[in-house]
């Protein structure tokens, strides 16, 4: 075991895979600069800068994967997926079904997500619910360096389209690129356990679709993803001081969703609080309630999500994104209801 940053873990796992499989290439805007270690190691044929043409290179990555390559296409920010989503929505996601199972698109779409560093709502969205809504896509959102590397390896091995999302607040390379800009005059609320942590000496794939219980609790289950997991853990520590035993379930992927783990925890605590940095309406938070209800469970439910366009002003942004105070308050509300 060794320690590694979240950013390095992803490139390290990707590099391990690229060294073993010449079909894997990385393509996207500025990837040669953003992933300099991979560029130098594998060269410009396999680490390819693209024009600022998400629709072209994401679509190209899909058919390149159908024709024998294993492309990792990087959409710099998931917000930019809006101009390229046809490649996923109408093509990658539908290929296996439309072809009667005869053709797959083993493409990994690597993209950053999330806010908390003052970029506003065109650069800080989560959108994993929007993508996971589409049948045929896997959507992975790691919260620790070890998960990030292991899930990247699994994404490369899956054989079907995967959207792999890196939260910028725990990805030091991206945060420096977009938020800090080399200054020491700005500070953001960065969860330390997400940014840097223990990783294995050699990467092994972590199965996609398996949630992990980050903290055991008997009164409330908080289900979350990405940075939300760390906010929930911080809130759980505060709630413990108030006599509320809070479990934290890290879903690790939106699709496939680990329904079994979710239902097991909800059955145990009979209270579910969803902390979702994505939009509240028509998304993951409602889906988790539906899944637990369909399983016949009876439970109290609450959610802390993003409800509006993320504003630029830092204080307003902090209130818009799920924060520890809102999680603690919502948990206390749930405890008021007897189960």
């Amino acid at each position, binding site marked *: 075991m060794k320690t590694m940053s979240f950013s390095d873990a992803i490139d390290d796992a990707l590099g391990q895979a690229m060294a073993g499989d010449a*079909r894997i*290439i990385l393509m996207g805007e500025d990837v040669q600069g953003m992933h300099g270690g991979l560029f130098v190691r594998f060269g410009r*044929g396999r680490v*390819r800068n*693209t*024009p600022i*043409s998400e*629709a*072209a*290179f*994401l*679509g*190209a*990555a*899909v*058919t*390149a*994967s*159908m*024709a*024998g*390559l294993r*492309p990792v296409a990087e959409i710099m920010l998931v917000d930019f997926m809006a*101009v390229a989503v*046809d*490649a996923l929505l*109408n*093509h990658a996601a*539908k*290929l296996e*079904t*439309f*072809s*009667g*199972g*005869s*053709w797959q698109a083993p493409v990994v779409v690597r993209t950053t997500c999330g806010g908390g560093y003052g970029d506003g709502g065109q650069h800080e969205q989560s959108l994993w619910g929007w993508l996971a809504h589409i049948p045929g896509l896997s959507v992975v959102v790691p919260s620790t360096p070890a998960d990030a590397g292991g899930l990247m390896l699994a994404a490369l091995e899956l054989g079907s389209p995967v959207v792999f999302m890196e939260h910028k607040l725990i990805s030091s390379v991206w945060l420096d690129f977009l938020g800090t800009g080399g200054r020491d005059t700005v500070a953001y609320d960065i969860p330390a356990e997400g940014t840097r942590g223990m990783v294995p000496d050699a990467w092994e794939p972590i199965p996609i679709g398996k949630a992990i219980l980050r903290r055991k609790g008997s009164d409330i289950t908080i289900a979350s993803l990405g940075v939300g997991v760390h906010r929930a853990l911080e809130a759980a520590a505060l709630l413990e001081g108030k006599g509320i035993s809070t479990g934290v379930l890290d879903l690790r992927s939106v699709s496939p969703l680990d329904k079994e783990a979710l239902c097991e925890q909800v059955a145990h605590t009979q209270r579910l609080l969803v902390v979702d940095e994505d939009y509240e309406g028509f998304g993951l938070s409602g889906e988790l309630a539906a899944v637990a209800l369909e399983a016949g469970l009876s439970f109290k439910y609450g959610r802390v999500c993003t409800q509006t366009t993320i504003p630029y002003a830092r204080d307003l942004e902090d209130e818009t994104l799920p924060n520890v105070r809102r999680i603690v308050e919502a948990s206390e509300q749930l405890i008021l209801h007897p189960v």
Partner: protein
Amino acid sequence: MSPDPWKLYGLMYKSRKFEEAVRRIWKEGKISGEMHLGMGEEGIAAGILSQLVEGDALALDHRGTPPLIMRGVDASSLLREFMGKPDGLCGGMGGHMHLFAPDLLAASSGIVGAVGPAGAGFALAAQMLRPGTVAIAFFGEGTTSAGMLMEAMNLAVVWKLPMVFVCKDNDWSISTPADTAVGGNLLARAQAFGMKAWEVDGADVLAVWSAAQEALQHARTGNGPVFLWAHCVHLEGHFLGDGLLDMTRRPMYSFRKRAWPMMRGLFRRGGASPGERMASMRQIASQVIAIQNQTSRQKDPLVRTRQVLARKDPGRLTQLEADIQLEVRQCVAVALGSEGRES
């Protein structure tokens, strides 16, 4: 090397006879939804498809039948697919707009513009894994207004991809005349991206063959993408049941369905001035007249080639057509099976 007109005519004739059968079966209601036929485009498809080699890839639009037939996809399985049968090309899951033949690296899409990125991805795989092979993207002139296609042209140029962009220009973007939908000159547009470009009459299969030979040679030898602008007609309009064509072919039916709402629009209170309303009516009328150009026999690639072959060797031509008719009849019979008789 010179083109073999007999081979080219055979490819076109088979595609035409197959699509005529598809049209009949569609009219009988055994194929649901839309049906975009490639009748009128066969000259473009044959001129190019006849020169492809193993490993070349096809990014096809919603009009994928002629290229797939010419590439050798089993016609029965194609027809079974159109009919939504489990033994169709894609198990009945795709239908005519979503056809996939992985062994031939051929994929179609019903999203206008998507063939650009799709072709670029196939070409990237060709460049990295199968040097000397190319990817062909087929699209109409309406697609040249789609951002995805223009982005893909730029990507193909900067990556020097082995790709042939083939524009099948029938002058109509669905039912909007191209002169009101496509800006500038497409040859100049392609050249502005840095591509070598050819303009050719798609009804002249030998001319298409010659232009395609140069274009393919350019792309295969690592010189980057090329653009082929080929003019054609759609003998069945945008799709079967095309509204504008229907007005010329089934005026009474069309009057009830389309002309009556327009007449009411002419007299309803509130709206544009009477003069502008009349101008709208005149525009529709002139489009109805103009659409008949799509059914011109002079622009039918089969008619033109057939005239040449009939002069050369009428006996051979009769035999060739009879053989293909039999082949298509048999494959239709196989596809229809217990569904009903074939004719």
